[in-house]
């Protein structure tokens, strides 16, 4: 008994030593700042004068902030359109690639590469050219006799170019789907074929239920990810979120308030609202998961 106790103690000491950097990070870099930004969210703070408590003023300001409402609309639209499209592409391609086919490794690499490049400034620069008035996309349309427009300079289409960019990066969830599909025992499909089940029926009754935990996982992850998109909108719009605020992502608005206007109190309140929105979406996802996600065990 006493040896067990002393072994426990020794483990404790070693564990906390090993965890020392992590604990320091938790306090100084993560939990501390999260708490601090909650407090700052109720202040007026411009980095020069000390923060001043202003009660619920930031919240009432949010309620009346037209640009914020617009930014929320843009962000929701971006998330709700680009994530389903991206995941549909990822799942579709993963299904096509799942059989032990020739060139699988090549296709997987080719489709995966864009998701490594997609968040870079370089690709955003490229996008700016491609969908510009004289860009590659219009040149290609010209070959078919179609006259394009300035896709990025037109407020009606600017957001779509960013949605296309996000869909383009379907490779990362595709690789996760591929791993998941390989876990489904082949005998299920064989049994279904013997019973004469069509491909669609096999997809509906075998693939979707057995893959649902992974679909769910990708959905949660990509939604969280999409809400935080910043670089592409920033570079494509030259930091403005334009034209006419049509690419004003939430994070871009937050950046402008905080690091252009040095309105740190309001920016902190905005950051917490983002956290709450992301948490709410995740919670809704988990709640809805009970209805459609199938766990084997």
């Amino acid at each position: 008994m006493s040896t067990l106790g002393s072994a426990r103690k020794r483990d404790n000491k070693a564990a906390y030593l090993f965890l020392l950097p992590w604990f320091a990070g938790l306090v100084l870099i993560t939990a501390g700042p999260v708490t601090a930004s909650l407090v700052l969210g109720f202040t007026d703070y411009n980095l020069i004068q000390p923060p001043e408590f202003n009660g619920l003023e930031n919240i009432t300001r949010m309620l009346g902030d037209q640009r914020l409402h617009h930014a929320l609309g843009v962000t929701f639209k971006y998330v709700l359109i680009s994530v389903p499209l991206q995941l549909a592409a990822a799942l579709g391609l993963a299904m096509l690639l799942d059989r032990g086919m020739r060139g699988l490794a090549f296709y997987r690499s080719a489709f995966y590469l864009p998701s490594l490049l997609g968040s870079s400034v370089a690709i955003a620069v490229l996008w700016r050219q491609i969908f510009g008035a004289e860009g590659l996309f219009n040149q290609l349309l010209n070959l078919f006799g179609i006259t394009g427009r300035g896709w990025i300079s037109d407020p009606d289409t600017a957001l779509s170019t960013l949605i296309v960019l996000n869909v383009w990066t379907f490779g990362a969830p595709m690789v996760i789907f591929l791993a998941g599909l390989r876990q489904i025992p082949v005998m299920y499909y064989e049994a279904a074929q013997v019973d004469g089940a069509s491909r669609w029926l096999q997809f509906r009754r075998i693939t979707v239920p057995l893959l649902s935990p992974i679909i769910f996982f990708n959905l949660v992850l990509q939604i969280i990810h999409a809400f935080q998109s910043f670089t592409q909108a920033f570079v494509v719009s030259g930091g403005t979120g334009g034209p006419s605020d049509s690419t004003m992502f939430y994070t871009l608005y937050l950046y402008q308030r905080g690091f252009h206007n040095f309105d740190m109190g309001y920016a902190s309140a905005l950051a917490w609202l983002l956290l709450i929105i992301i948490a709410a979406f995740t919670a809704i996802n988990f709640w809805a998961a009970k209805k459609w996600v199938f766990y084997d065990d």
Partner: protein
Amino acid sequence: MTDLKERPTPALAAAPAPARIRSRGHSLLKHTGLGLLTLIMLYPVLWMVVSSLRPNNVIFRSPGLVLDGLETQNYGEGWNALASPFGHYLLNSAIVVLGCIIGNLVSCSMAAYAFARLDFTGKKLWFAVMLGTIMLPIHVLIVPQYIAFSNLGWINTFLPLIVPKLLATDAFFVFLMVQFIRGLPTELDEAARIDGAGHPRIFAQVILPLMLPALATTTIFTFIWTWNDFFSQLIYLTDPDMYTVPVALRSFVDATVSTSWGSMFAMSVVSLLPIFLAFLLGQRYLVKGIATTGIK
């Protein structure tokens, strides 16, 4: 790429002859479709590379990928377009990346060892907290962090980018390593313990050598993410002398306003080259990494 070759699924290998013939025609169609899609997916990037080797006035009328000649002038112009030669920004990025890799490797592996192998009070709680921080958006941290770092006089240094990594704040790498260590047999640690090794020695001499694949995955992802990271580098680095590649590239875009796409493309290609190399060399670890943890 050959090491990624997949074994055929038993269903297809054992399929009766007629089914195989049918699937052969089917497979030709599929390969055509997939080949076409591959081309569409990679076309923008290939076109950028080709365009970086074209004179400026040709870029706008050449949607194709065939080069008439090699115009390397863009690279020279782009390299010297900003206050410092582009190599300066590459070096800055390399320093940040190196610091972040070392930080993540050391701090995350230590934390992972504790979570995976040691028994301590509050383990479940701290593990849950660690998982919770994975999902935390950087935006709720950035304002107070910025205030703290600016009070320390760290703005326009690389410290705000590197120090957090030394403190294991990239929690998904901790998670990735915990998963990996849990998969290692415990017999080896036990043997080492019987031989009188303490935890530091077991960690350094038994576990670390065994977890090289997880360390490789961490290295490659840290490399790619840090190299691409724009938001925090934009915020902390405002002095052109301290610019990293993404921030420099962005200032290039704003300064030239689409007049010299050639040199802009040239530097974009230069900035993507390290990512591409990391992808080529580390594919195996990348694919394994995202397949096990679902990271991007």
